[in-house]
């Protein structure tokens, strides 16, 4: 039994409480969904339960946490009973490649070499990671990274498993698979606490729901309580209904009308990383100006690689990218990648947008326009803040705002809504459509089916297209 009593936490240097009197109890083998708007304290709660506060998460901690009557002692011992998958799974890797990461995790817990080897094989199989077993952890897709961390944690058989946004980068089939795995883990008597914005995939996993808002418990209940649209909207939550995961490619009509004319065309693209296996083979498609095209496909299929090819960050082995039928030298278009930390440089949020608008040219700042951009993304109040001091969701909105602010013919957004709540999902989707209406071809790479429903005007399903590569242009 996990018992949480009057948990209150104030981050160092922050006057506001991140958690305020949160309490609940969770019997063994029960799954609890913790949800709420961005910045409501979900990640803070999980970090505290994982034993990270106050040593790693600096601040003032009050209240208590007990697991089977015991309080957290030293983190390295507590973490063998309480497994924690953070929002950014990459930060949990210690080893260089997948199998070594799993093996190391087990060996650090004094599991013998042979037993650890068997558990590694089992975990690789359960989480469909056999094909990447000797691959570097840095070269995995975000979804694969998440699966590696989950595989490592579950193979340790913890009493409590804490998952922070596990759905953020997983494709729909992988989510279904994860839901099944979590149900099995729950059946083994492990308590699960899952903090997530995407709710639909958890309907068969969690029976209890805790909604946080501004650090306080805004409500507790079951799925029936959240089935009411008004209740969810009031709490800023996403839909609980499942969206269709079967979307077929719908772009061929445009392509037939002007096969290599206006628009951005990928023609017979083939790519592999440094003498590695072919990732993209003879792929052709067309993106139309003023249209939002959604790129779907399983994790690890090469969607982010395709984004990098489109923007000139990688050179294809074969084939070409054509803008209005012509090749463009050097990097082109705007791509917003998943890791926002690397994409924020300036001393304030306002400066960040200003530099994007002026494209680095001297004396071209326009505060008024920059503020308009920030308002559209609900960030105007944060204009004077340092970008690196923003929360994960705020940073994400800022990098997308910066990407969409620049005049360009192609915008590629890689998972722009992972980790966004219902309110921000609507805001983001409105801005994506508005941006496309202003001219550029917008390509959205996502596993978020709610976003697909909201913005998709064209769809490229990489699962299908890679099977019949020339289909879209012929």
């Amino acid at each position, binding site marked *: 039994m996990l018992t949480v009593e009057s948990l209150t936490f104030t981050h160092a240097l922050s006057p506001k409480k991140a958690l305020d009197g949160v309490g609940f109890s969770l019997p063994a083998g029960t799954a609890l969904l913790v949800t709420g708007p961005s910045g409501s304290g979900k990640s803070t709660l999980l970090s505290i339960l*994982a034993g*990270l506060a106050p040593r*790693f998460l600096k601040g003032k901690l009050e209240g208590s946490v007990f697991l089977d009557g015991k309080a957290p002692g030293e*983190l*390295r*011992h507590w*973490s*063998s009973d309480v497994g*924690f998958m953070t929002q950014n799974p*990459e*930060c*949990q*890797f*210690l*080893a*260089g*490649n997948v*199998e*070594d990461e799993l*093996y*190391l*995790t087990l*060996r*650090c*817990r004094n599991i*013998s*070499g*042979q037993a*650890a*080897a068997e558990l*590694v094989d089992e975990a690789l199989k359960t989480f469909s990671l056999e094909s990447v*077993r*000797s691959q*570097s952890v*840095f070269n995995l897709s975000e979804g694969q990274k998440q699966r590696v961390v989950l595989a490592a944690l579950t193979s340790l058989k913890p009493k409590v498993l804490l998952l922070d946004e596990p759905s953020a980068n997983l494709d729909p089939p992988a989510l279904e698979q994860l839901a099944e795995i979590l149900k099995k883990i729950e059946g083994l008597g492990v308590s699960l606490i899952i903090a997530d914005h995407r709710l639909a995939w958890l309907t068969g996993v969690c029976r209890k729901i805790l909604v946080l808002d501004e650090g306080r418990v805004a409500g507790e209940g079951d799925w029936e309580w959240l089935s009411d649209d008004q209740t969810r909207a009031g709490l800023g939550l996403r839909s609980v209904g499942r969206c269709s995961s079967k979307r077929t490619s719908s772009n061929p009509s445009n392509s037939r009308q002007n096969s290599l004319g206006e628009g951005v065309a990928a023609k017979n693209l083939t790519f592999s990383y440094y003498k590695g296996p072919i990732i993209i083979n003879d792929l052709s498609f067309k993106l139309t100006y003023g249209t939002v095209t959604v790129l779907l496909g399983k994790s690890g299929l090469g969607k982010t690689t395709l984004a*990098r090819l489109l*923007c000139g*960050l990688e050179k294809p082995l074969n084939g070409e990218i054509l803008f209005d039928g012509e090749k463009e030298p*050097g*990097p*082109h278009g*705007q*791509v917003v*990648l998943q*890791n926002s*930390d*690397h*994409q*924020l*440089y*300036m001393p304030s949020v306002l400066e960040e947008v200003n*530099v*994007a608008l002026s*494209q*680095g*040219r*001297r004396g071209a700042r326009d505060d008024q326009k920059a503020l308009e951009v920030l308002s559209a993304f609900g960030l105007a109040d944060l204009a004077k803040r340092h970008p*690196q001091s923003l929360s994960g969701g705020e940073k994400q909105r800022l990098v997308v705002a*910066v990407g969409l602010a620049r005049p360009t013919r192609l915008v590629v957004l890689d998972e722009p809504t992972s980790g966004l709540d219902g309110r921000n999902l609507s805001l983001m989707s409105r801005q994506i459509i508005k941006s496309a209406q202003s001219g550029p071809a917008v390509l959205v790479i996502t596993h978020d089916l709610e976003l697909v429903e909201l913005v998709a005007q064209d769809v490229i399903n990489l699962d299908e297209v890679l099977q019949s590569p020339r289909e879209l242009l012929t």
Partner: protein
Amino acid sequence: MPALSFKFSESTTGFLKITPESRLILTLVASIFSLFFGQIVPLAILLLVTAVYISLEIRFRYIAIVYLFFAFIALTAVTFVWLLGFVFTVMKDQPLSMAVIPFMRLSISINTIIPLAFNSKLSELISTLNKLRLPGLIKLPLIITIRFIPTFINDLKQLRQAVRIRFRGVSGYGFWVLRPFLWSRVFFMPLVVRLIRSTDELALATELKGLSAETDFGAQRLIFGPTDKIVLALASIAVSVSFIIENLHAHG
């Protein structure tokens, strides 16, 4: 049951295919002797030998990235020493060797530690450290240092990409010349943030894994194959020659 009876799909990488034990011994020997030597010639011999070693073990691209960063640090240090010379005149009178020797020592360590970081699996490395009976206080920092290198290179790669995307119109080789302050800001600001976060994240990963100075994967007997023996013999010859030259200089 031996700790490493588990057969990794690819047990060791690099052209030489030597064991992590040999790599670690090379790193420790080269680092210790580079500190011991104070003359340019013996250090140059070690530098040359370790340069051959790293070029056989690591892709040129990675060596170039590490050395570019290292060159930047060296250049910054030399510039500040030169500037300090205007204030403390005694610093101006120092021979050139005083400035060169620390960088030679650092290069020798880099040449041996990079193959260790890139071509060894961490679980193998921990096992090797146990075999060498190194104390926990040396073992854990060494593991974190070695693990930090690929993280750092990955951060550099991602930052370079982010700059290329954001400053499409002004990026390329002319960006840092045209807008040096903006360039240093967009490159170094996130780099500093990432370095701080990466160290925090590695500390967190270590704690969450339960890895500590006391972690013991079991210490077995050291096993060296024919290639290991050849490489270690060549390294011994290079160190011995350097040692003789160092002593000749000292007594001559």
